[in-house]
């Protein structure tokens, strides 16, 4: 039976070192996103004849930090290799990267990273340059090349095929993202800053590579799709081809790649223009002392110091920005439970139901940590109830203004008069007559009606009381 077949998943993650000022081998800006096409370039990153790569030493430092966080061994002699292949976005028609076939010389090897309940071995970490980008113009047969990105430093993190479930992949990637955020090496919210390729094999079948996945959520979806596809094929005794497939974001399926990626011979050899980099114990010791607090340590601190639950701590720390926002707020008014609960439950609802976007949500809201601290204070001191607090929070999030209760108290006063509540319910029943009919068959729809009532009353009725009135009304109807 196919259900006995084990699934093996390995990952290859490319993470731009967006925290650096300059590219890996020249002084052009690492932050290429702010420039018009081919504005952030120089003779070196466009591969003009006679130019030489000048290694950005800070990139070595940042990559070594990533390796330390992933518990890798860092060899004491680091080399760069040329990976030779032709492509339009590659200015030199070779990529400067690292390679371990002729001795271990990549920045890190043999790491291990725990996530959730599991752990995955890290085969290697290597430092390499990003190529440029191609874009195709509608209605034209030609394509345009932008070299602004060419030479931006990447760390490539390759895991062993230690995952069996796409959900674990998601957990691992969240953990990894949090680590690079905490190290300050990568802003994962930037488009294209983190890319993930995955490979998956079921039982004895051949390995299938999945490329072109731009978000962590989609990695999980793509892997789930592939598992279903491959298991279905095995059920029909069809052979699974070893191939590369691309994730189609629109249709949510994987497709066989149009361009045949046959076994390429990259003819790796040591780049003579970059002398070997010696890494000694002293360097590593100094680097170790400079390491920022990592997510696991921070989580422990949140649990022990702020007395937060394991779950809440994890949600906060999965996104460094959330954790930072929390700590800033808690520093102003020490109410960690209230503050974390507002962030994790209330603010989460503004985040498009997508936890990946939570990090950027916190960055984009207008409310300051100080205002959040103030709301938490009002809750804790019993000045407002939770529902009113929600209103205040909403106002603060969208307008950046905190309306204190004394200024505009009437708007937040609770409606206690049952007549007023019933009138609102009747109004809703009139405008939502179809939903009312549905609600008679499906009790879940009454929650929808409740939402409408809450909307109409601006949240000033007690939802429990309103719901029981709605249900009563439905029976009479």
């Amino acid at each position: 039976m196919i259900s006995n077949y084990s699934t093996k998943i390995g990952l290859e993650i490319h993470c731009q070192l967006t925290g650096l000022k300059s590219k890996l081998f020249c002084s052009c800006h690492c932050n290429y996103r702010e420039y018009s096409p081919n504005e952030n370039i120089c003779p070196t990153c466009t591969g003009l004849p006679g130019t030489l790569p000048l290694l950005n030493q800070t990139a070595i430092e940042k990559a070594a930090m990533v390796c330390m966080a992933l518990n890798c061994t860092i060899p004491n002699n680091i080399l760069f290799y040329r990976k030779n292949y032709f492509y339009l976005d590659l200015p030199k028609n070779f990529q400067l990267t690292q390679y371990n076939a002729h001795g271990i010389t990549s920045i890190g090897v043999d790491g291990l990273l725990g996530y959730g309940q599991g752990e995955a071995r890290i085969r290697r970490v290597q430092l390499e340059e990003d190529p440029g980008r191609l874009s195709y113009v509608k209605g034209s047969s030609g394509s345009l090349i932008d070299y602004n990105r060419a030479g931006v430093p990447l760390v490539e993190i390759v895991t062993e095929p230690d995952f069996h479930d796409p959900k674990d992949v998601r957990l691992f990637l969240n953990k990894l993202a949090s680590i690079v955020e905490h190290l300050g090496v990568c802003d994962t919210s930037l488009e294209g800053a983190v890319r993930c390729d995955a490979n998956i094999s079921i039982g004895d079948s051949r390995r299938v590579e999945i490329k072109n996945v731009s978000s962590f959520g989609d990695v999980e979806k793509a892997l789930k799709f592939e598992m279903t596809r491959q298991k279905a094929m095995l059920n029909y005794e069809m052979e699974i081809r070893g191939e590369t497939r691309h994730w189609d974001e629109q249709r949510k399926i994987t497709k066989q790649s149009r361009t045949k990626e046959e076994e390429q011979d990259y003819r790796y050899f040591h780049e003579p223009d970059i002398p070997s980099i010696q890494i000694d114990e002293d360097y590593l010791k100094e680097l170790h002392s400079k390491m920022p607090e990592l997510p696991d340590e921070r989580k422990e601190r949140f649990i022990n110091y702020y007395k937060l639950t394991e779950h809440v701590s994890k949600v906060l720390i999965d996104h460094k920005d959330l954790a930072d926002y929390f700590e800033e707020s808690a520093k102003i008014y020490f109410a960690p439970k209230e503050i974390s609960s507002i962030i994790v439950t209330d603010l989460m609802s503004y985040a498009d139901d997508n936890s990946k976007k939570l990090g950027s949500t916190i960055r984009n809201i207008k409310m300051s940590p100080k205002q959040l601290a103030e709301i938490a204070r009002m809750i804790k001191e019993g000045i407002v109830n939770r529902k009113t607090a929600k209103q205040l929070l909403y106002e603060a999030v969208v307008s950046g203004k905190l309306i204190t209760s004394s200024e505009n108290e009437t708007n937040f006063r609770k409606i206690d008069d049952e007549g007023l509540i019933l009138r609102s319910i009747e109004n809703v029943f009139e405008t939502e007559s179809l939903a009312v009919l549905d609600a008679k068959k499906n009790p879940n729809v009454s929650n929808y009606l409740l939402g409408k009532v809450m909307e109409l009353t601006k949240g000033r009725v007690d939802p429990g009381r309103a719901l029981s009135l709605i249900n009563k009304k439905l029976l009479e109807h």
Partner: protein
Amino acid sequence: MSRLCDLSLDEVTDGIRNQHFSAEDYVSHILERIARLDADIKAFVSVNTDHAVESARRIDSKIRRGEKVGYLAGITVGIKDNISTKGLRTTCASRLLADYVPPYDATVIRKLKESDAIVIGKLNLDEFAMGSTTEFSNFGPTRNPWNLDYVAGGSSGGSAAAVAAAECTASLGSDTGGSVRCPASFCSVVGFKPTYGSVSRYGLIAYSNSLEQIAPIARTVSGVVRLMNVISGVDPNDDTTRTVASPYSVESNGNHLRIALLNNLTVNAQPEVSKCIYSAMDTLSSAGCICEEITLDSLEFALASYYVIAMAEASSNLARYDNIRYGFDLDPEGYEWNSYFAKVRSNFGEEVKRRIIVGTYVLSSGYYGRYYLKAQKVRALLRREFKSLYSKYDVIIAPTMPILPFKIGEKIGDPIKIYYMDIDTVISNLTGMPAISIPAGFSNGLPIGLQIMSDDFQEQKIFDVALLFERTSKIQARSPL
């Protein structure tokens, strides 16, 4: 009274600084010679006339105003056309760079300009410096000024011929496997390959990065020494550069040094060449040097090792010439990009194609260990052996070329024969150690060069012996034309 063009580098800077003649007079004289002679010699690919005259006038007015001028003020330097010159076409004698104008100066060019040297023009070479005769140039061969039917050597044939014909005071070439020493020997001028890492390669269009150095050519040893004093040193634009022991001195005290003659190389040489090298050893002996003969068996593998490494690196270095960002006029309309690449790259010359193909082969999986890795091992072995030799000897001498210059076209059909010409010179590129070729005599009017090699950064020992030989051998640094 000698002609202005025949003056040595020191005589030119002294003459201009002391106002015996103006920089403009000198440059005009040189430009006139180029115009008159170069149609026959074909050393120049481009002549930098306007810039040269302008620079000369600027130097003259500085001198008239009593201002300080640079160390090389007023000398005319020809530049091999694989060294990037801002605003001045840099072709590598290839169709693929026919229209390429670099937007930046190589470090050596910046340093020359800062010392008030005048870039007089760009000089012919084998396409991408791949060759030993300058016959593999897209512009046609450079001719030997000593006999126009003969090859000038290569790949820096233009750089050596222009200096020999006194079309410039000095020149820069590049030496990957002997590319400066070979033509220096064939044209009877002085060519010096520095220790790897002495001179910045920033701006040198790479043929084989781990082997090559930019290398000066002049008619006298002191000319080369003075150029080295300007172009060498650590460059923040080249991470492979290292601190050097400059400034180098032109006061020779080489008469006490221990010299070994590498007789594997004289045994394999043409008898006329061999005879000349032994007589050079006698000259040095009589001048007070302690000379003896040695044999080194591992030299047998040097040539194969050199070509494997050079071609491997070349195959990768030349991959960037796809005509997408710069290059020559070839309409991409109607081509799928892969076929456009193929179309573009079919424009490389025969020798370049040969080296790309061999280089690609030796790096491919399954062959890497058999060729590239083995070549690197030979290289490491040679370095060890020479290191130990230099604990016993200060310098090692040998012929620069195993043969005399030959007629243009004579060997072009036999690439292996041409490769074998490099057997004496590739050693120093593999070890990374310095080596010079200086005029040692003539046979039937054809020049012979003496090669002097030494340990890493021991350039001064080489210069000392070369100066001593130059002074005692009395071979005059004169132009045949």
